[in-house]
Each structure stands twice: as C-alpha cells, then as structure tokens.
C-alpha cells in the first residue's frame, strides 16, 4: 500500500481466509434477491424497478462498437450472459476488455450497438440510472466516510420516496459487513484498512444497492499475490451465495480460469473465444488463445496434405482442417514427454532446472529458432539430464494453427 497507515491495522487476511467458508450472516443477503421478499431486507420495495430474481438478471450485448480517435476499442461485440453467471473478460491491455465493462456500466457510451438488462434496453441510460454495482481496481472508497457510511451511501442517496428509513439502512449495513467478514469494522476509515479489506468494503458498497449486474474492473489488480488468491476464492464463494450476475475484467488467465463460469477472451476489440475454463484451456480456438491462456511451446513448420511437417525431421503430425502452408504446432510443456528409441523429435538439452517435484528442460530442436520447454514429474530414480545431452520429444497433446491467422 502506497500510503503509510496512520493507524495501522494488522493485516490478518491470510489466516482469516484459509479454508474458511463464508460465515452465514444473521439474515442472508441472498434474501434480497429472492422472489419472495423477506421483511426488511427488501429495500426500496414498491419501486417501479423490477426486482431481480434470485439469480440476478441476464445481459445481452448486441454489436457493440466503440472507437477512440479512429482506433476500434470495441468492434462488433455480441455476448449473452446468463442470469447468475460469473463471467471473466480476459485479454491483454488494449484488447478492449475494460472498454467493454465501462460500456456495460454506462461509464462510456458505445458508438453503435445495444446493452440490454433482461429485456430492457439500457443503452441510453446513464451510469446513475443503470443501477449497476461497479467495483474499481483502486477501490475508490470515499476517504472521509467510515466503512458503514461508505456502504450506506447508495441507499442514502436515493430520492426520499425510495429511501429506506435509518434503522433499515443500519441493518442492511450490518448484514453486508457480516457478508464481507468485517463485522465491527463499520466505524473505521478506509485508510485504516488493508487492500483486501478495502476491496471487500467496495464490494459491499456495490451490493448494497441490489445491483442489476455486478461489474468488477481488475478487482484484484492492486493486491499482493497472496491476498489476491485468497480474495478470489472468497469472491467465488460469495458469488455462489448471492447468485449475482457478475462480470469481471482481468489480464490474469489464472484468475479467469479459477474464478469464472465462462471466460470471454478478447483481442483487439473482438471476441476471440467464449467458453468454460475447461474449454478455453483444453480447446483453444486460436493460437492467440493458446498462447494467452498458458505457457506454450511453439514449433514452426508447414502443413502439406493434412499433415504438419517439421523442417529437417521425418516425423509428421496430424493437422486436420488446417489450411496448407506455413503453420505452427502448439503444445504445453506438460503435454510433451521424453520418448524412447527413435520415436518423436530429436532435441538437445540447453539447460536443465531441477525443482522440488519437477524437472524443467530447455531444449533446442534443429531448425527451430525458439527453444522448447519440457516439464515432467521428477519421479524417484530419475536423474536430471546434463546440458548437451540428446533426447527425443513426443508431443502428447498439441494443436496446429495456420501461421496466416
């Protein structure tokens, strides 16, 4: 944390989270989303706005386009997010993921296309009218307000006719503090909290208004690696409790794989692939996705007659439905195994890294510019190959993509 804490609070997050399932709040917040309103939790009852169902609202994006000074940040994005889904928008910087999130929130207006919440067209609605819960990367908590005042802000800002009374607001704040596992923190100020605690307060503040959808902009981006992993597991559990339709932006494929129901991979303002984490990881639609979703070995070659040929090597590989011409074979390090006899591809060890339970080899394959990585479990009795020694490589699982695409 950049600013020194005036009144430092010991960061107890690690122990607080490990293996702790979410403590059930006295009155579960999920009740607020149930179709049968349960007592005081249903805030703003009698408002014309439709009550979100238990699993929130679904979301349709139609042909969204947005240009910045001539460069397309979004280029015809179509997406349907089911009610209650947790979706990751994944891509490197400049892929349009943050722009997409901001267009959904109403922070940016698209040049073309539609945003629909349920069946209602929200494209023309302002940020204020959309009733989305937006969580910023750097929390954006109101510095001069206590945690409780931060959480209550949305409810207190409602027009008098829709504003719940003070006791109801206080109860709601207490519930949310329980939900984010910070009971008793209501009187503290944001500067007295750790990064992870701040982000949970920001989440509670967004949830307080019963948002149509929850939008998180790189929610873990400003946190330490350890806190980040704990917080995202916690967020997954929280999502399972609240069933809130949620979209979050990340450039971290690990985060997307672990947390999301579905991942949307973006590239230069277009959707490259949409799928479950399993689909995205094991069946990447393109070399771009393969490369982005995890470390990849790449072998350059060409496709002739439906087979992938490596220059200078006899062995060929199946490459169905890949156009003829220059192509690349992609394989993950753990999907490449050392071979026996003359099977596989000849390679020379450049460097060997012995880790506790694994051995990682850097290999040179004749005719290839880039080194190939091989990763295998260090079973007892196995010795680490010396640099300079020869071995054979067998790609167990791989995919061939045309170099043109």
């Amino acid at each position, binding site marked *: 944390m950049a600013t020194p804490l005036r009144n430092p609070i010991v960061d107890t997050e690690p122990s607080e989270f490990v293996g702790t399932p979410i403590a059930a709040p006295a009155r579960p917040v999920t009740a607020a989303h149930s179709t049968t309103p349960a007592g005081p939790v249903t805030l703003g009852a009698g408002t014309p706005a439709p009550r979100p169902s238990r699993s929130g609202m679904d979301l349709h994006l139609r042909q969204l386009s947005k240009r910045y000074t001539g460069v397309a940040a979004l280029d015809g994005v179509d997406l349907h997010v089911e009610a209650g889904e947790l979706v990751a928008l994944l891509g490197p910087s400049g892929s349009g993921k943050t722009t997409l999130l901001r267009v959904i*929130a109403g*922070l940016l207006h698209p040049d073309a296309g539609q945003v629909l919440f349920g069946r209602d067209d929200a494209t023309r609605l*302002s*940020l*204020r009218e*959309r*009733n*989305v*819960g*937006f969580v*910023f990367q*750097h929390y*954006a*908590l*109101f*510095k*001069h307000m206590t945690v409780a005042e931060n959480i209550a*802000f*949305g409810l207190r*800002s*409602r027009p008098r006719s829709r504003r719940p009374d003070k006791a109801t607001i206080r109860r709601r704040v207490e519930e949310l503090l329980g939900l984010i596992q910070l009971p008793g923190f209501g009187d503290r100020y944001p500067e007295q909290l750790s990064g992870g605690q701040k982000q949970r307060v*920001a989440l509670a*503040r*967004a949830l*307080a*208004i019963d948002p149509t959808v929850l939008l998180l902009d790189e929610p873990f981006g400003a946190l330490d690696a350890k806190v980040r992993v704990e917080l995202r597991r916690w967020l997954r559990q929280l999502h399972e409790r609240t069933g809130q339709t949620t979209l979050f932006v990340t450039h971290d494929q690990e985060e997307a794989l672990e947390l999301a129901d579905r991942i949307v991979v973006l590239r230069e303002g277009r959707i490259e692939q949409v799928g479950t984490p399993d689909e995205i990881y094991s069946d990447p639609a393109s070399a771009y996705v393969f490369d982005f979703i995890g470390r990849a070995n790449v072998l350059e070659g060409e496709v002739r007659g439906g087979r992938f040929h490596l220059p200078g090597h006899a062995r060929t590989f199946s490459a169905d439905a890949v156009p003829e011409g220059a192509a690349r074979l992609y394989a993950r390090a753990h999907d490449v195994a050392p071979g026996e006899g003359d099977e596989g591809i000849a390679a020379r060890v450049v460097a060997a890294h012995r880790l506790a339970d694994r051995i990682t080899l850097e290999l040179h394959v004749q005719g290839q510019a880039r080194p190939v990585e091989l990763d295998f479990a260090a079973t007892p009795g196995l010795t680490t190959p010396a640099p300079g020694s020869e071995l054979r490589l067998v790609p167990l699982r791989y995919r061939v993509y045309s170099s043109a695409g």
Partner: protein
Amino acid sequence: MSDVRHRDDLQEPAWLRVALIALAVLVMLSLVVLPLLMVLGAAFAKGFGTWLESLTQPDAVSALKLTLFTVAIVLPVNAIFGTFMAWAVTRFEFRGKQLLLSLIDLPFAVSPVVAGLCLVLLFGSHGWFAELLREHDIKILFARPGIVLATLFITFPFVVRELIPLMQQQGADEELAARSLGASGWTMFRRVTLPNIKWGLLYGVLLCSARAMGEFGAVSVVSGHIRGLTNTLPLHIEILYNEFDSTGAFAAASLLAGLALITLILKFWLESRHGDALAKSHRRH
C-alpha cells in the same frame, strides 16, 4: 544502513554548511524580517495613540472597508468559479483545453498595470462598452465595480491552480462510484467532491485573499484615487506616503502587514495539519 551512508556521501565540510546556512539566514533577515520590523517601528514611532489615530481617521477607515468589501466579493466568486473551472478541466476532455490551461496563467504572466489598462480599454469613456454603460447609467471605472473586477482578474488563478493538480491526482473514480450508486450530481458534489478538495480550496482561498488585499497595480489604474470612496488600503498608503505623512502611511502598512501575517499563520497551519490533502505537485506560491 544505506540511508545513513548516503547522507555521509552528501555531507559537505562543516565550515561550508555553517557558511551556507548563515548566509541564508542573513539574507532572510536583511531582506524580509528587517524591513517588516522597520515598518512596525515607523508605525509606532510616535506612540500607540498616534497609530490608532491615523487608522481611525475617516479616509483610512473607508480604505479598510473598501479593501474588505472587495475581498468579500472576490473570495466567494473565485472559490465558486475556480471550482467550476478546475472541475471542467480535470473531468472533461475537450478541444482547446491546453489553451484554456495556459489562459488560466495569464493573470500571473501579465503585469497588473496592463490588466488595469485592459479594463480601461473596455469600460473607459472611449472604451468598447462606453455607450452601453452610459445608456444604463452604470459606472465601472473609478468606482467599486472596477476595483472588484481588477482584483478578480489578478486573483483568479490562485484557487484554480491549487485545485487542478489536486483533482487530477485524486482522479474521478470516487465520483464515478458515487454516480453508479445512484447519487445525483449535486449529492455527488456535496458528499464526495467537496470533502475531498475542501482543504485545497481553503488554501487557494487564503492565497487569493492575501493577494486581493495587497493588490496595487491593477487597482491603481482603475480606482481613480478618490479619497474616502475608491481608495483601497494599498492606495491609501501610497497617497499618505506621497504626502510625507509617514506615520500614517506606516500605520496603514502595519495593518496590511498584520493581515498578511495572519494569512501566513493560517497557511502554515493548513500545510502542517492537512498537507496530505493539498495538491502535491509544484506549488507556485
């Protein structure tokens, strides 16, 4: 460890340190403190009674009143428009923004006398608006409106200059968060923006008031020096001084210096107490 060694590396010989510090103190004493003491000495040279007498004569009282009147108008106007301006510049992208930013600095760059002459050119008897003013029987030059306008022009940048870096540094996220939570524009401003900038705003207003009280050049051009009517405190001092009434001049000067000292103390308190809430980037004054 490395910190300590670093300091050692930078450490100059003792004699040089002492000499440099002594020089700095000497310069401050001779250029700032001594003249101030001289003013106070001259003001009270003929005793407290004379001092009080020169300050309570009608012309002095009216000059003080006019100065306070001007400050009372200039401060809220600058605070409000300064906030609007800083808001516009930091929260919106628009064509000509850089030009606008440079224009904000114009009052600092231009000599106050030139600023005064501009007003004469606009509102004088041969100025652009002369006819219009005559038709509606409005007097701007050689009257209070002229003095207020000249002071406004000179002091406009103080609030804006303090707020722009502060608001840039804080970013718009908190405001966007407030909007997304359903706050109206006014609620957002009152409950989020204003609390975040209040100390910076106060700091700007303080600098602005110091300058507004002391402004001489621009006001001198447009005032007309009508005793008891259009003389501000600085102009009053000059007139007394030119008439060889040095006791009266220094008495009024001591009053002005006293107001400046109060401003300085408030400024010091603000910086030590709420320095973290003020704009961190280059402070010009």
